[in-house]
């Protein structure tokens, strides 16, 4: 498994654990499908979004300090992985 795949799985596990989604298998969450609009196996709301922002900060030590960009970054697992990778590299 390459680093990006590993990171995406970590993100999915973080989502499931943070939001206590006991009936969701992390591997079933699709990388490129929106998480907020009912097009993925889970549908998040804005409160879930804040929970995830704080979980990303705790787990990956990167701060998502722009709420408008957050909407786009939290939209898919792909976008979260790209954001975390770019922040950790900078």
């Amino acid at each position: 498994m390459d680093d990006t795949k590993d990171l995406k799985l970590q993100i999915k596990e973080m989502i499931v654990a943070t939001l206590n989604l006991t009936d969701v298998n992390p591997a079933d969450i699709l990388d490129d499908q929106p998480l907020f609009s009912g097009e993925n196996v889970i549908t998040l709301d804005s409160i879930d979004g804040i929970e995830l922002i704080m979980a990303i900060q705790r787990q990956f030590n990167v701060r998502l300090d722009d709420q408008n960009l957050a909407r786009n970054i939290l939209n898919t697992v792909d976008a979260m992985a790209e954001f975390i990778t770019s922040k950790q590299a900078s």
Partner: protein
Amino acid sequence: MSGTQLPFEHKMSAHCETGTLSSQLAFHGMELSEALIFGIGSGIFFGYFNNKRFAFPTFIVRSKPGQIRKNLTKRLGIKFETETFKTPQQAQEKLDALLAKGIPPATQVDFFFMDYLPQYLRVHINVHFINVVGKTEGGDYLISDCYYPKIVELAKESLQKGRFAGGSMAPEGFLFYPTFIPKEFDFEKAVRKGIKKACFNMLKIPIPFLGIKGMRKFANHITEWPKLAIDAEDLSHQVSKINILLEDQGTGGAGFRFMYATFLKQAAEILKQPELVDFSKRMMDNGDKWREISLMAARMGRNRDLSVEKLREVGALIHERANVEERFFKELAKVVK
């Protein structure tokens, strides 16, 4: 007028007013970051309002709309043309005339009528700012909205509805655009003044519900909210609004505290005062704590966990923020003397 799109560089940003100002200035050749605009404009603030004008107590985390632009005029000498209109027709005629002259103005709208945004984001907020950057052959408008990833079409009817929405801060077709940008600026002086005024606003305005005093009033008063709410549903909605006001309404995160932290980091370089980097870090940490309050309120609202004890816990956290920010702004005022 046939279809046209002005060469306007679209940028996303954290907050509509500062983002729109930044884009407007960029169109006229001046690059000024959103955070610098916010800081020079003394945007950071706090106020708690519990009076007859409001159906329920509410709070603000920034200075009133328009004040940042006015402060830019005072501190950097940038002049803006501003105008409101009596009728939608007059407002549209002026907009078309400006576009025909190659000027893409910013205008105030109600967020709700911005059809291009996803439904779940569209709530009635009538102090949203967008740039109008062109017109289609069919007579609709091309919009640069800092909350949307690209320039997008908006039906002329929707734009009109947005520009003439009602409410206490009704837009009345308000539009603005820069008319004069000085060739040279004293950024150091402007940044220093922006910080000093922010410190004054937070610490010294002699009104008991503004600045740090407002935070303490909020912290003390929140346990009274159950008596003021119509019912449990209403209380749940009002408590959830704490999260919306801190995080969801284009605040840049944590009630603008993150944006102010970014400003202070940039100010450290402009003023050649590296100690401001430490202030920036402290403000970031402060933002994290506001975000925790925001999340706690959101959870309470969602779970209907609204006991007085729980509200007292929120109040204690807000008191803590008041103490931290009071110390912060007192020390900051000394550093930028």
